[in-house]
């Protein structure tokens, strides 16, 4: 399946490892991601506070560009996804809004190709395909799947299995051989940008999620949103200090865990880009074993990607290698 890949701003910055792991994993599962040319900002959390129509037109432009190519957008970031689905919903439900949006973006947009999250795309590709390609099952890893607000809500336009207890990430985690824990704070708010602007409001929100994940017995958290990961990963140190007991819950993107099970190199998955390093946990669980970290360290620059690459990557050979970030 071919998709117009829309990385959005976060994935070239804070969410870099989401970007590289997504692009590394997708081809292994027969998913072709072609970066959407000339993509623009989705408006994220700012635009819809300022101007409703503009906030719909911004993501609509990207979806319209995809439509011109006859492709659905594939979106990793939950905020981009939410805004794009909101635009899609508006265009589908209001002729009037569609006309306004079309005049703002200077091109037609009929919402004929549904906007999809990377998560949906991997689920659509089939869990069986995923299972067949797994080389190193993540046995023994207890994972708390965290969806945050935007993957599951609002139900008006987010195609979600269950807004209170979603299962999509859990099914992927289970397919990878890891153990998804049952816990209560899957869809609680991580505070979005509040942990930065208002730490006294945002801090406790993050703290609650971390504590519940801890209590559920999970070794780590897995999510599908750069903002959620940023908050949960980056705040652990300060929050641990505040409560007098450190947190040690590595936070992954689900694509990183997929890459791990598909036996990709940690560097290709950006596993070293976390504040709470997942390496000790992964070593402890014996999940780094097949990856030759030493070899990678010996080479100062990793750009040429020599023959070792092909030996490491499992069965279906990826035909397009868009390794690094844009």
């Amino acid at each position, binding site marked *: 399946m071919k998709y117009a890949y829309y990385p959005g701003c976060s994935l070239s910055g804070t969410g870099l490892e989401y970007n590289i792991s997504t692009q590394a994993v997708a081809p292994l599962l027969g998913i072709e991601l072609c970066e959407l040319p000339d993509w623009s900002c989705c408006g994220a959390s700012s635009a819809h506070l300022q101007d409703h129509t503009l906030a719909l037109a911004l993501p609509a432009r990207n979806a319209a560009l995809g439509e011109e190519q006859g492709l659905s957008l594939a979106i990793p970031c939950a905020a981009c996804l939410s805004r794009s689905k909101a635009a899609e919903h508006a265009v589908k439900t209001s002729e009037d809004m569609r006309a306004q949006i079309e005049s703002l973006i200077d091109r037609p947009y009929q919402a004929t190709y549904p906007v999809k999250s990377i998560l949906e795309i991997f689920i659509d590709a089939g869990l069986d395909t995923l299972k067949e390609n797994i080389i190193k099952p993540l046995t023994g890893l207890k994972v708390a799947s965290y969806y945050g607000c935007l993957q599951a809500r609002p139900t008006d336009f987010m195609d979600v299995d*269950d*807004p*209170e*207890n979603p299962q999509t990430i859990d099914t992927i985690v289970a397919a990878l051989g890891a153990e998804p824990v049952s816990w*209560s*704070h899957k869809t*609680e708010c991580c505070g979005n940008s509040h942990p930065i602007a208002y730490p006294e409001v945002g801090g406790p929100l993050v703290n609650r999620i971390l504590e*519940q994940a801890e*209590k559920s017995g999970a070794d780590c958290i897995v999510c599908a949103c750069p903002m959620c990961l940023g908050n949960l990963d980056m705040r652990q140190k300060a929050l641990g200090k505040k409560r007098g007991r450190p947190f040690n819950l590595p936070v992954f993107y689900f694509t990183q865990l997929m890459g791990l099970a598909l036996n990709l190199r940690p560097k290709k998955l950006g596993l070293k880009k976390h504040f709470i390093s997942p390496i000790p946990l992964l070593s402890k669980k014996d999940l780094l074993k097949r990856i030759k970290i030493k070899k990678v360290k010996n080479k100062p620059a990793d750009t040429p990607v020599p023959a070792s690459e092909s030996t490491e990557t499992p069965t279906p050979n990826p035909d397009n290698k868009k390794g690094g970030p844009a």
Partner: protein
Amino acid sequence: MKKVGVFVCHCGTNISQTVHCEKLAEAAKTLPGVAFSTEYKYMCSDPGQTMIKEAIAEHGLDRVVVAACSPRMHETTFRKCIDSGGLNPYMLEIANIREQCSWVHSDKDKATAKAGDLVNMAVAKVLKNEQLPSSFIPVHKRALVIGGGIAGIQAALDIADTGYHVDLVEREPSIGGKMAQIDKTFPTMDCSACILTPKMVDASQHPNITIIPYSEVEKVDGYVGNFDVTIRRKASYVDSVKCTGCGLCSEKCPSKKIPSEFECNLGTRPAIYSPFPQAIPNKPVIDRENCRYFKTGKCKICARVCTADAVNFEDQDEMVQIRYGAIVVATGYTLYDHSQYGEYGYGHYKDVISGLEFERLVNASGPTMGKIKRPSDNTEPKNVVFIKCVGSRDKARGHDYCSRACCMYTAKHATMVRDKIKDSQAIIFYMDIRTPGKNYEEFYLRGVEEYGVTYVRGRVSRIYEEGEGENRKLIVQGEDTLLGKQVFVDADMVVLATAMEPQPDAAGFARKIGISYDQNNFFSEAHPKLRPVETLSAGIYLAGACQGPKDIPDTVAQAGAAAAKVVALLSKDEMETEPIVAKVDTDRCSGCGFCIPICPYKAISFTDLTERVHGSVAWGPTGKEVKRQVANVNNGLCQGCGACTVNCRAGALDLLGFTNEQILAEVDSLW
């Protein structure tokens, strides 16, 4: 010469603020056939009706048009009025200038013009009206009450006390309904069993009441005064005549771990069981699904221990048909299933229970003998949180309506927690506190002031579990809107005040017996204010929560009202029928029979007609009388819906009071 009187009503300002009533009455004077026209503030009031009667006498009117509210509201009123004024009651037409004009329009001139058209039409129609004679049908003096909860029991007792015989049909093995499961009743805290069980005994011993337990109404045929009701007596596998109710069979039954419906699955019962010790009739039934004999073909222990030889494994469902004059529907309610609330754990948390489950936990005859113990580990909860409006007043997941009884029973539950567990805390999350009943507000305040129940105004957004075993607790996360803060409460048990909703089969049942129901599947009363216990189907009445959420006092009051209506009906030897029925013009009828299947009341059948020529019997070439089949309408069954008249190809069927000629006259009057 036909003389029409037109009477325009202001309905206070309901009509007059959007329609120029004076102009309308003035304009009506110029219409053909109109001999008199006037307007008045309240035409339905005594002076208004007197005005009509006097005008009939003074101006020699022979037909009347009243321009007022919907005929559903006051057609009967005005029919009676002109009847006592000396006219046939069907020489009346109503022009609905309220619901269909003043209430829905704002431009006064346009609304007046439209009201003028409506009056025009009514005058054109009334000129074609014929005098319709009423006929009389006999009334069968026996009543049926469907549902043996407190509503049904009360209605049955009230009817039976006046001397008429009542059959009380209950689908469970015992009468008693939900009230039998409840522990105490607000606001007096009488024990529910102490006030209900004597009534159950009264019903069972009353010479005029026959209790038909473990049975369901299958079909209702016939019409007011003469309903033919088919009742399915479900196979109970126990001969209720032989059975002495000793209970030995239940004691010896080897399948004992079946969740008891009566105990809300918090306790168990055997496969041969009576729902509770005070059951009436106290005769057990066999639950075929769970009976060892029916599952494996071996066992029959109950039959062996029965000294009365009452167990009969060959028992089968049995259909009985009985004729009744009137029916009271008192099928009650069920509770909203909170497993639809994902944020409250989808019903997976054992210690998140419904209000009715709590009733069983505090009930002295319940599974815990009245000691409040939480279901997960049977320990006494210290912190109990109550959440109101679960499924009520929630458009997203539940129902729009308020369930009316929850504020009060939650206040009762919290008070009981504080009373029974001294070092406990009872916290109620609420949206509003609604206590509109005698001594209700005082009851709620007593809970707060004397028992120290805590009320937190806000919704609970999530409940989650923490800890294991004894330390297991529920965290209730909600908003205190008065503080403007999120609050987290540690709870040992959470009680949800789940919405009252109609029985799951309510809509199907309503269709089966021919009554209407609303958007929530509660049965509809004929008029929300003036006919609260009647249905739109004559002879069928409503009592209790099947009509809408209700507490016990309201249910009992409504049951009494329904009983009074039944008694009023049964007290007549025969009753007048509505003459607005279909009529066959046998000269035109081709005998095609298309009208027979279309009639929802099965009122049309074929009849043989002997042809006559110039008044004498026509003889055919073979020397036989010439006969043909024509449609025939049973006036007792016909409800005047008119479905047959539009289906008749020959135009032989006409609905009296709404003949084709009358309707065409209305249409013609507009041009």
